[in-house]
């Protein structure tokens, strides 16, 4: 069996934490989503691999080993401990859970990957993992390969990047949101209880997004709302038909449909403005290829970068 690999068709959430408040909010949201009976939660802190070249020829591992000799912890341990306390507060883990520590050697780093694996009799897992990788984005994507998750949750960067900077040097959240093979929730001031705003453009992909988000909303008892932006007044009837189709996907699901919005204007700006009142803006993955997206941009990418609150990119 692969390390951290799925043992069943259980819903699997990867929560990437870095010590920021956003990432802890993301963790709480993951608990809410996985609070039923069948979700695995893997909490990962990615530590960039220690590089000796920049230290003038002395491997940083020498400094690192010296720190460990003093009984000092690696940077990510404190962050994982706080995440663990949050999990304990939610009483997610009971006394009957078993604990197992696992170390995996990683080429180029003496400390490698380390994790503590908690599991119950039903096979449900909660994992705390300290992972090393060449960079944080690669670490998160590699972790997906190991575990094949249904959802990745990570905190947004504290500083907002301009379009030009984002083009040249996208943030970790942007890179993961656009490259991960599964759905990604970029947490930004994430608060439970304000519902999900699902964006639709009438496409098959958008309808699939609605189905998937209703499943997620049902897990956290969240209401959903729908939005379809018309570029001008003439195209409003078409948008209304999209919304009607979308509405039909929400019936008989047990999930409350709150608002149905049809603003006129620029899609990105209208969605961001309307989305500010909700916990999460839900968008479909862009259908464009990497090159097309780079040259022309995409609504999804712009929303991930500019939104004031959390964005879920659904795949």
């Amino acid at each position, binding site marked *: 069996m692969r390390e951290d690999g799925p043992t069943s*068709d259980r*819903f699997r959430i990867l929560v990437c934490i870095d010590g920021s408040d956003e990432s802890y909010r993301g963790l709480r949201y993951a608990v809410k989503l996985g609070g039923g009976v069948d979700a695995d939660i893997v909490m990962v802190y990615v530590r960039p691999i*220690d*590089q*000796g*070249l*920049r*230290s*003038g*020829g*002395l*491997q*940083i*591992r*020498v*400094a*690192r080993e*010296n*720190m460990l*000799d*003093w009984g*000092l912890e*690696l*940077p*990510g341990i*404190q962050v994982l401990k706080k995440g663990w306390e949050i999990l304990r507060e939610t009483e997610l883990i009971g006394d009957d859970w078993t604990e197992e520590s696992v170390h995996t050697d990683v080429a180029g780093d*003496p400390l490698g990957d380390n994790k503590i694996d908690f599991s119950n009799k039903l096979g449900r897992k909660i994992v705390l993992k300290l992972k090393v990788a060449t960079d944080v984005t690669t670490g998160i*994507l590699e972790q997906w*390969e190991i575990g094949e998750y*249904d959802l990745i949750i990570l905190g947004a960067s504290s500083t907002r990047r301009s379009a030009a900077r984002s083009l040249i040097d996208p943030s970790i959240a942007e*890179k993961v949101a*656009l*490259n991960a*093979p599964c759905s990604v929730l970029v947490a930004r001031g994430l608060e439970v209880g304000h519902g999900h705003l699902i964006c639709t453009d009438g496409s098959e992909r958008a309808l*699939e997004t609605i*189905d*998937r988000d*209703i*499943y997620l909303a*049902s897990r956290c008892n969240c209401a959903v709302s729908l939005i379809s932006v018309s570029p001008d007044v003439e195209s409003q009837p078409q948008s209304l038909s999209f919304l009607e189709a979308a509405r039909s996907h929400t019936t*008989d*699901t*047990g*999930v409350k449909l709150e608002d149905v919005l049809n603003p006129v204007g620029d899609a990105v700006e209208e969605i961001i403005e309307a989305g500010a009142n909700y916990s999460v803006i839900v968008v479909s993955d862009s259908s464009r*290829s*990497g*090159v097309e*997206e*780079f040259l022309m941009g995409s609504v999804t990418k712009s929303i991930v970068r500019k939104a004031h609150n959390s964005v879920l990119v659904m*795949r």
Partner: protein
Amino acid sequence: MAVRPLQPKNSGVMHRTKRVQRAIGVAGFRQARRWRRRLDFWYLWERRWFLIALLIGALMLRMPTPEGLTTEALTVLAMSTVATILFITEPVPLPTVALLIIVGQVFLLGIQSTDVARSLMTDSVLFIMGSLMLAVAVIKQKLDKRIAWLIVRMTGTRTSSIAFGITFVSGVLASFIGEHTVAAMMLPVGITLITLTSGNPKEVRNLAAVLLFSISYGCSIASIGTPSGGARNAIMIGYWKEFFFDPTNAETRKFLVDYLDWMLHAYPMFLIQIPFVTFILLRTFRPEYRDLSRAVVKLRAQVDAQGAMKLTDWLAIVIFLFVLYGWVAHSSDFGLGTIAIMGAACFLITGLVQWEDFNSGVNWGVVLLYAAAISLGVQMKDTGAAAWVAESFLEMLRSVGADEGIALWAAVSGLTTAVTNTMSNGAAVAVLGPIMLKLATVAEESPLLIGFITSISSSFAYLTVVGTPACTIVYASGYLKTTDFLKVGWKMVVMSTIVTLLLAALYWPLIGI
């Protein structure tokens, strides 16, 4: 009302995934996914600097040869430009740059493979190698707790005094045994004082910045104090000898700079800066705790648990003092490198360190990188490329009236500071050294003075994490943000530049430059 059974793993996409998996097997599917990701545009985009560097290099090779430049010199310039871009942007592992320099010299410049190989190993490279092995050996002796206790005994428990003590002791040690060695030894001391003061990092944010920067900046300002303080000093000594020493001309003997000569010129610079460092740090970060009595008491308990100094501890100190004596008294006879290597051999013979420790603790890629960079630097001189760039640079400075005296020194210092903040300081001196020394010749300045300014300014990499080994090491603690380096770094750059220029104008003339 029941929720529609919409398990994501049974959705359309997942069905497609499963179908693909069944068709090509799980392993094949994962492999295909991996390849798809590797071919993904964004992954190519992340390697963009490698492609851009190669493109620029190719364009330079195809362009008409500028006046005053030979074809060989243009080729060396193209190679240097590509190497500089790769040093700064690091799209490929840095030792790759060293390998490409070696390959380029054979294929593009047509130099015999044996000659290229010979140019890779000089006394400077031997010294860098030996110093790194000594660094590992010293750290392995675990003398850091005793040093920590020495600091707090000297300084008392006031935060400002401890910060000053850490800067002073880190500096004095770093000036002899290298900044990376001391930063690695002192980092646990700093973190222990921080964690013993408060377990909550947010409560000691500024205290952490003051103590950790006291270590890194203490090491940085001291690393120019002696040749063994940093690889760049040895590189500059090598360049002086290679470029200006002529065994048949007694006048040129002044370019054989030995350990004491270097100290005489550069050590005062370190001593003058110490109080300024503490002042700048305390003014910038204002620590939350003015007194660290609680932490000091606990630290003392930890040190007491170690017991008295052991025979092996004393032996390690004796070997290092022996190496230091060799550097000071005999480096002009035997070379800095031979003495460093001899010291490393002594540590191995006495069993104080194992070869495996050297093997895993030294990044041999760095040694290769410096060797290749120095080799390319020599080609810069031999082909006339360095002189051409120096003349062009001087022409530019002349247009703004900065082609002589303090203005020229400030320009040299400014350019070196800018470059060293973007790449390792050893690489900065390896790349800039030949140009700056030729600049000195063309501008009729002393190559020793310009060389010292270049080498000293290469330690002003206070602005970024990658600039100096000490900064990289303290950043690994996880307590500092990259913005902290900018917040305090610019003040340090201004202070260090002023001290350097004052030293060059007032002190060096007194001792014969």
